[in-house]
């Protein structure tokens, strides 16, 4: 196993779930209860020093028990190392601790995840929609059950030359 993953396993035996190394990327899956602690450790510990947030993302797996996956990708500028920290949340309780108090840039990135996938972040200072309109009523567009062409409101438009 990758030394960083091993270290996380040692320090957080309850939170660590598994580590995958593929194509040179290290991805660590952790439990939702411990993700904030683990990220705090990755950021603050001088051996880790993951000070740069790359992106926050989310993946929808509708057929699995814990439907959503929240992905934090962070980088250490001093060590030139990258790590992906992932956690799973179920659909009926999709809430994760916000990382805004660790990396300031997480603010907008988490808002985008909320906007697109409907995952909420605890302790986020301003969790509102960012790309879609504030009053958008049709749900979360990047979920797999959201149709590619939208939910039908375009069908109500009348087109030029069309008789109705």
């Amino acid at each position, binding site marked *: 196993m990758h030394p960083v993953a091993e270290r996380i396993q040692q320090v957080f035996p309850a939170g660590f779930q598994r580590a995958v190394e593929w194509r040179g990327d290290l991805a660590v899956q952790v439990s939702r209860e411990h993700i904030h602690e683990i990220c705090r450790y990755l950021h603050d510990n001088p051996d880790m020093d993951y000070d740069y947030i790359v992106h926050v993302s989310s993946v929808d797996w509708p057929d699995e028990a814990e439907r959503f996956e929240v992905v934090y990708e962070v980088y250490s500028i001093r060590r030139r190392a990258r790590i992906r920290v992932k956690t799973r949340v179920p659909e009926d309780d999709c809430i994760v601790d916000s990382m805004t108090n660790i990396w300031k840039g997480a603010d907008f990135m988490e808002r985008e995840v909320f906007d697109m996938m409907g995952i909420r972040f605890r302790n986020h200072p301003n969790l509102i929609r960012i790309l879609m*309109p504030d009053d958008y009523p049709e749900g979360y567009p990047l979920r797999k059950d959201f149709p590619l062409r939208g939910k039908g409101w375009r069908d109500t438009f009348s087109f030029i030359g069309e008789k109705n």
Partner: protein
Amino acid sequence: MKQPLEDQRTTVYKVDPEHPENRALPTLRTEEMMLNMGPQHPSTHGVLKVVLALEGERIVKATPVMGYLHRGVEKLAEDGTYHQFIPHTDRLDYICAMYNNFAYCRAVEKLVGITIPPRAEYLRTIVAEIQRIIGHQFWLGTQALDIGAMTVFFYTFRDREILLDFFDELCGARLTTSWYRIGGVERDFTPELIEKLRRFVDYFPPKIDEYVTFLETNRIWLSRTKGVAVISAEDAISFGLSGPTLRGSGVDYDLRKFEPYAAYGECDWSVPVGKNGDTYDRYWIRVEEMRQSLKMVKQLLEKLPDGPVMASVPSITLPPKDKVFNDLASMIQQFKLFSEGFKPPKGEIYCGTEAAKGELGFYIVSNGEGKPYRLKIRAPSFIHMGAFDYMAKGYMIADVVTIFGTYDIVMGECDR
């Protein structure tokens, strides 16, 4: 220059509730004013609204309202094959289409694990660096135009046209190029194009000096950029800023050096780094990067190896165009790649590329099907907007334009 926010308020505006008789200007109205800047504003480079809370002319809070150009590119990606997504990437950062193609193709190549022939790597690097010059020329012209220095705009656009004509010659399009392919590039340089590029490398350095002369002798431009939009290295890292915006604060984070890709490891160049973290330093970095890009193009043209410009992995890469019409196997290959696509292994990768505006990354999750299961774009403009409120606090309304400009923001990429 940036004044500490508190000083401004207590000395001029704020009234101590316990001693109201001490107020300096008793007739002044002191409530905050809200002002909408945008969405239709010439300096926003697209459609961006910022809601400003003002105390006098000073910004107390700036809230960016984005999404006017949201087209759902990430959702569209889930509906097409990997090859079909390349033209969508052109429309992200439409000033630097080539670099978006490059970043996307690199990510897919990492996912499927193929290597690129050396000539293709060289051509990719040359075109990417020309695209960086175009991006920086565009930035220099429009940013100076936004804050009142008009002249340099005409000069940068004059030289930008020359480079866009090269792209036209190379792939038939000036802006939405789609020249990169998964596994290589669409077509080779012609000998005439190489000759023209060589001439350009000699032609351009005096022109950069010309731009610099226009700006650095302009007192108004200098006083509107020096000390404006300052951010410390620590904050810039915490906000996830990248590219010249981060390097202006003195962090030498450049993926071309940190994780050398394409042919960047094979030529001699350096990363310009600023000191003060203000708009002027970022300007200086972009000018220096143009010089470094030229240096790279010159070296790479000298060393350009011979060979194919496309990897030959029939299950993934496209066949050469002339064979498609004459060779049955190639035609079938082309047809299958565009109708059902290729099937990368299950897994997920993130691949970041140093584009002109910052780190442009693609996070791709594959479930083994012909279409990406999830494709996330790490757009530098979007992440830079996250620091906007922090960087705009305490400045005047007129500086908002400079602060937009300092990121080199393009809304097509920001809203995706």
